[in-house]
């Protein structure tokens, strides 16, 4: 490791220590997590054209540097938990690729006082990242075994601002609506209109489209201050289908 890199990792390591809830003083995964962060940063730079930015929100990157991803994957996969790739977590589900989680979270543009809804808890990783950034995260998982496991893991990690509900996410979470941000990670044949209803004016919703192991595109739904809804379709990689000028 080069000196500046070591310095960065020391600083980041210190940040982790201060971040509280999820940090451990003698975290054997700290180095792997730092490598993951660097990889994400490099990927973001390469995709700056599509993402319209060179770097992601530092708060998002800090959240990624904090959450112990290894604690949310099956034990047998802990040593590869920080690779920048999706991993199978059983029940036919995956924990998303960290890079995709990073840009999805960034696209949500949440504030510390935001209230966020997640449909499809899965491993609980996305919820944990959000919990580092916002006041309250509500997350719904349809597969009971998965929801129970994620709830257990998140409680063990000390996340008190995440509420896990096991059930059908199609109608959102009426009692807590509206939300500043919504993440829909569960596969659906369409974006549920009730979720759009539960989005605050000025709020953002993000929906990854594709298969468990390959996200093909991200759909960002924006509701402006007047309540008008538009979507943006984002390719998570730098690729322009047309060559030359048109």
């Amino acid at each position, binding site marked *: 490791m080069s000196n500046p890199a070591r310095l960065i990792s020391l600083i980041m390591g210190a940040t982790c220590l201060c971040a509280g809830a999820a940090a451990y003083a003698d975290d054997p995964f700290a180095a792997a997590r730092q490598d993951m962060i660097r*990889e994400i940063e490099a*990927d973001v730079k*390469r*995709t700056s054209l*599509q993402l319209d930015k060179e770097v992601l929100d530092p708060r998002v990157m800090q959240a990624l540097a904090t959450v112990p991803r290894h604690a949310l994957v099956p034990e047998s996969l802990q040593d590869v938990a920080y690779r*920048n*790739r*999706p991993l*199978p977590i059983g*029940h*036919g589900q995956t924990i998303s*690729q960290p*890079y*995709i989680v990073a840009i999805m979270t960034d696209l949500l543009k949440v504030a510390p006082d935001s209230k966020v809804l997640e449909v499809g808890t899965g491993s609980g990783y996305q919820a944990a990242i959000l919990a580092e950034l916002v006041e309250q995260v509500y997350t719904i998982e*349809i*597969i*009971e075994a*998965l929801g129970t496991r994620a709830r257990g893991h998140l409680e063990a990690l000390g996340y008190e601002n995440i509420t896990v509900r096991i059930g*059908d996410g*199609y109608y959102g979470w009426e009692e807590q609506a509206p939300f500043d941000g919504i993440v829909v990670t569960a*596969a*659906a*044949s*369409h*974006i*549920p*209109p009730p979720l*759009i209803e539960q989005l605050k004016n000025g709020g953002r919703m993000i929906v990854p*489209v*594709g*298969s*468990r*192991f*390959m*996200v*093909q*595109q991200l*759909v960002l*739904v924006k509701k402006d201050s007047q309540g008008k*809804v*538009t*979507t*943006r*379709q*984002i*390719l*998570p*990689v*730098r*690729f*322009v*289908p*047309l*060559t*030359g000028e*048109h």
Partner: protein
Amino acid sequence: MTGAGTLERPPLVSISLVSASALAYEILLMRLFSIIQWHHFAYMIISLALLGYGASGTFIALARPWLLAHYPLAYRINLALFGLSAIACYLAAQQVPLNAEEILWDWHQPLYLLAVYLLLALPFLFAATAVALTLTRYRQAIARVYAADLLGAGLGSLGIILLLFAVFPGTVLKLLGALGLLASLVAARELQGRRARGQVATLLAALLLLALPVAWLAPQPSPYKELSQILRIGGTRVIEERSSPLGVISVLESARVPLRHAPGLSLHSSAPLPEQLGLFTDAGGMTAINHNPQGQALAYLDDLTTALPYYLADPQRVLVLGAGAGADVQQALNHGVTQIDAVELNPQLIELVRQDHGDWAGNLYDHPAVRVHRGEARGFVRHSRATYDLIQIALLDAFGASSSGLHALNESYLYTVEALQDYLARVAPGGYLAISRWIKLPPRDTLKLVASAVAALKASGITTPGERLALIRGWQTSTLLVKNGVFTSDELARLQDFCRTRAFDTAWYPGMPADAANRVNIFEQPYFYQAAAALTGAEGAAFMDRYKFDITPATDDRPYFFHFFKWEALPEILALRGQGGLPLLEAGYLVLVATLLQAVILSAVLILLPLLVLRGRREWQATSVRSVQVVVYFFAIGLAFLFVEIAFIQKFILFLHHPLYAVAIVLTAFLLFAGAGSAWTARRDAHPRLARYATVGAVSGIALFGLLYLLLLDPVFAALLHLPVVLRILVSIALIAPLAFFMGMPFPLGLARVATERPALVPWAWGINGCASVLSAVLATLLAIQFGFSAVIIAALLLYALAALSLH
């Protein structure tokens, strides 16, 4: 030892039995692995497993003296092993944790893939060893043995398709295993009479296989397939399953969480979704039967892009191509259409909607306004003399399959330029052809569709195609309208209104201002508008050339609508691998290339191995026939035979209008008549000198009929198109017969010559032919994608000529 054998009768019945089972097993594995994995991986796995044929030649070449000395036993054991391994290897392969989706993330996966196809190669190795051993042993009766092999294969291909209609794939597997053991029993009778040992054990083993519980053999879909995923949700269960060669259909009920299948639904939709039953084909491709017992209008169907034509005009005669579970039929009924023709290929699907769940669906398919037609879309349109105010082709394939390039290898005659012309010929003046597609990022098939529509309109003499096209899109789906006429300003106003209220975008209509594009569902650039403007204008060709995906229109000769891969884009996409750029790869085509590369390497090993190991032996010393001649001859005819067979299956699909009929009839006819051709040479292969001329004669016959068909098949088909299907089947068989008859000759003629002059090389020649057949199937598709099926036929004729020259 071989001398005595020449007077004995070869075991022709057991050869036919094992060839029938092996061919049936090949087709069955394709079915099973399409359910377990995804179609393109199934294709790769089975292609490579077939190298077991090539391996048998290598194996016998290396162990020939021992095997020949123990021929009756070795033969019977191979037959029995085929039967046992057909089941055992399949079960073992199911245990391998192969996850095709992870293949580029996880280095274990290629090893798992290798394990799967090595396992599945074993049954083919045993079956092929039995045949090749017999060819080696009875070298005076090569033509008859080969004829029995081909006849068996022909019956096997017909039998398996019939069998797949009758029973589930798991049961078929049992039957094929038992058939292998039965072949072994028959062989005992044929070779040794009543004295043969082990017959009781074989019989017991066969009975044991038949008694295996079907549940053990049922394919277990990957946990990442759609059906597996949805079954994780509490309260879901499969209530019914139907099986046919077209796929296994599973009907899913969800007691607790409603299914809500409504792809492309407007973000603004407030319409409630009805209860649904899910329909899955091969554990994927979900559609749904709506619960609508009162037959009411279902408002959500009007919040899809496909509803557009009903808002521009008031169509009264509607044709729905690919009616499936009936959503598009209901959509037409919503708008009071009084005459709906609904065409669906899969009879089991119609039955499910009409009978089994008729009450649930409100007897949709028995509605007085609806006529359901069982058949293929293109064939229906060609045979129909009716005209329609609207022809609706909705989303026939599932998004998952479409977006990962799964269909890249599938021929589809639904979206070719000629197909669009056929449809447009049936659209009444002022009416529309409406085709909907999934939206992909970057855009691919929607653009290819626009390019195809432009080409079809131009071919019909329309010089300004842009005036007759309108394209709208939501975030998920697009709908293209092709009007028989020019759009009126009233229609265009309604179109804009339709889009505005549903959060859809207009992507093209005549006179559309550029700033009206890309407003609600926003892309980095207004890709769809830019493309439509270019494709309808003068620089369409330049645009297609510049675009990083292949969006040039598909044609009947190159029917690959779903092929978007361009080599130029490969380095750029590969560089994006780590960031998840792989979906851009359009994997289907690369899987094909990967299959070819692996097959080439493995074939080279299998062919060269005996040459390197045995070249010092006396019987491997060259005489009048050199080894390289053997390689060229058997490689060329191996390639050519399947080239012709595959290309003609495609040509006949357009005549028989049903992919299944075409495959079953063409394959069976080819194999049976080739078998007859081989048998016909039997009388001549005793005279090697004559055999040389016979080869030239056979190749001349192939060339004559091949060229004749290349020139005349299209006009003949066009002239006979209106014959009833039974007559078209008879015409097809009559057309295939002479060509296949000649094609059955070069292999036994050549092998008889090798048997006379260099007998040690007989199994090797068989192996070379086996390897070439595997390469041939893959190469034929690659060539057809690039150059079309006519080119594949020409290549085959040249290969036959090369073969004739090489051994002359």
